[in-house]
């Protein structure tokens, strides 16, 4: 079905609800003219329009500038549904529940790290399980795994991983409320047993980066960032555990949608009424997966600290967690809608929460500035640190983009460049890379992604997050 849209301003495009039968609200795309022209946009906009047809959607179906084709929901989509008469949809979270990013700062400079960078990346590759078919260094039976996902990051700290201070520095303090492991299938427990502390594959990575430019000095000071400082970024999610939970409920909600006579324009948008037992069951399981992902990134952080200490012997390297953000989630939040406090399930699929100043959900040290947000770019270019804003709260239910957003399919990316050529190209730029499968590296080539500078600039111009610092890769570890 062709999708019509109109340009509202430089960076806001509207898909009017009258343009397609069944739309309850407008679609709103935060993009520029160039991004709107790019190949595949029609089908993506169709996905934004489909979400606008789901029951109880509040205000608008949103698309961030990094929007690309997803399953049901586009990746880069945000939609809030009334907690009483809206819906909850696993497709609006994604298979990789709480895929997210954390940033760890060090008190090392790029000059101090460069001479030992190759050794460091190699040590990280040795100590962090990654890639296809890999088992983690922990193995948990069903009872222990249930305890872990109920306890979240605090459970991991009690077991001797990481620091107490890591808890406060994590979104939801690494333990989101509302989980219940009794709603987990045996399959999910089986898939999750050996994967805590593993990086995964695909677009998941660990990067040693340097702060290339501080853009907002005041906020950077609060986040503890300064130019030329080395930081470490980790991007991974809930592994097979989360994937299985999404699959379990995607399957069962096919029937649930029929039971409650919900209009579902796409099978991947299968849903349950927010107040139903089925929705509550999904939420309880989903929260367990959120916690699993936070534990996963927390344990990887523990391994990172060990690796840095073993290469740079002696001394205190800082290695403090700045923050950790989820970019695939559904959260029960309260927002002001037309002046009224409204509870809603905010679905962010490939979108990051970007809460502004004075929000109690944000760690106290960030309440003046707004929460940190981390936007990974692609391997060869930049990543960004942003801050959440007050404008985000009213414009996008406190949300912003999550990454560069893919432009090319994996098939097409591999036609453009070979994995070994890409590795040589990045190495010629001084970037050290270790990857599990070199031919597949081509799928993650910079050319396969939109320009993260452009994506982040649009979010900054719209006012839904503000630029704080630009980071550049020094070393990359991929599965």
């Amino acid at each position, binding site marked *: 079905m062709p999708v019509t849209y109109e340009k509202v301003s430089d960076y806001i495009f509207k898909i009017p609800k009258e343009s397609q039968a069944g739309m309850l609200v407008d679609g709103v795309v935060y993009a520029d003219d160039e991004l709107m022209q790019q190949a*595949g946009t029609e089908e993506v906009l169709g996905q934004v329009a489909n979400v606008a047809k789901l029951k109880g959607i509040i205000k608008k179906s949103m698309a961030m500038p990094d929007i*690309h*084709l*997803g*399953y*049901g929901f586009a*990746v880069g989509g945000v939609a809030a549904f009334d907690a009483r008469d809206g819906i909850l949809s696993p497709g609006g979270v994604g*298979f*990789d529940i709480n895929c997210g990013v954390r940033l760890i700062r060090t008190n090392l400079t790029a000059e101090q790290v460069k001479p030992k960078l190759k050794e460091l990346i190699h040590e990280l590759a040795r100590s962090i399980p990654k*890639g*296809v*078919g*890999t*088992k983690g260094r922990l193995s948990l039976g069903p009872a222990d795994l249930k305890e872990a996902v109920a306890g979240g990051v605090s459970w991991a700290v009690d077991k001797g991983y990481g620091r107490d201070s890591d808890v406060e520095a994590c979104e939801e303090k690494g333990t989101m409320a509302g989980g219940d492991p009794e709603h987990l299938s045996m*399959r999910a427990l*089986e*898939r999750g047993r050996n994967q805590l502390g593993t990086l*995964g*594959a*695909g*677009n998941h990575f660990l990067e040693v980066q340097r702060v290339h430019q501080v853009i907002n000095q005041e906020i950077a000071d609060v986040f503890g960032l300064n130019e030329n400082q080395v930081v470490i970024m980790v991007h991974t999610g809930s592994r*097979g555990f989360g*994937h*299985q939970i*999404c*699959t379990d409920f*995607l*399957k069962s909600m*096919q029937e649930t949608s029929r039971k409650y006579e919900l209009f579902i324009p*796409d*099978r*991947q948008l299968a849903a349950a009424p927010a107040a139903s037992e089925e929705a509550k069951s999904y939420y309880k399981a989903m929260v367990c997966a959120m916690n699993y992902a936070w534990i996963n990134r927390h344990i990887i952080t523990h391994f990172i600290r060990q690796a840095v200490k073993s290469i740079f012997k002696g001394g205190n390297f800082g290695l403090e967690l700045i923050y950790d953000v989820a970019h695939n989630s559904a959260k029960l939040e309260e927002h002001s809608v037309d002046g009224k406090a409204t509870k809603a399930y905010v679905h962010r699929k490939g979108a990051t929460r970007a809460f502004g100043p004075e929000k109690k959900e944000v760690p106290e040290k960030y309440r003046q500035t707004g929460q940190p947000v981390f936007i990974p770019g692609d391997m060869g270019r930049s990543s960004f640190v942003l801050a959440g804003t007050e404008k985000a709260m009213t414009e996008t239910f406190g949300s912003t983009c999550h990454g560069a957003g*893919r*432009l*090319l*399919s*994996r*098939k*097409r990316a591999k036609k453009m460049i070979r994995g070994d050529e890409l590795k040589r190209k990045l190495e010629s730029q001084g970037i050290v890379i270790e990857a*599990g*499968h070199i*031919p*597949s590296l081509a*799928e993650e080539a910079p050319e396969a992604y939109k320009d993260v500078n452009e994506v982040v600039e649009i979010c900054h111009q719209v006012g839904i997050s503000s630029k704080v610092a630009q980071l550049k890769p020094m070393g990359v570890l991929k*599965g």
Partner: protein
Amino acid sequence: MPPFETTEHTADIGIKATGKNLSKALSDLALGMFSIITCVDKIEVKECFEIEVGAGDLETLVFNWLDELLYQHQTNNFLFKDFLIKEANEKSIISRCCGEKYDEQKHAAKSEIKAVTFYGLKVKKDDRVQINVTFDI
């Protein structure tokens, strides 16, 4: 003619398999799925699993069968290469699927499949059977 083709999806990958009947299309489809994970030429047939699924419609049936294979692959660290479809109709698939355990010295680890999706999942039946599936990578 190759048993399957890969299809495009921005972030992920699809497989299209065409066979003279449903059984052949399913068998080629599953091989296509494992070709995403590893080089299937290197998989030997050493062990078999009986895999049976049911569903209310054909698309869900295909989804369930591939999902079951993926689950067995993930939890048993097993690579499948040979798919004997004993029975396949609109409501059920009964199969014996064979291969061997993943060995990092022998098998390339190409991509990790997170999940089977319903995106574009289609079974077309005329003089041949064609199945399209997209996988989340």
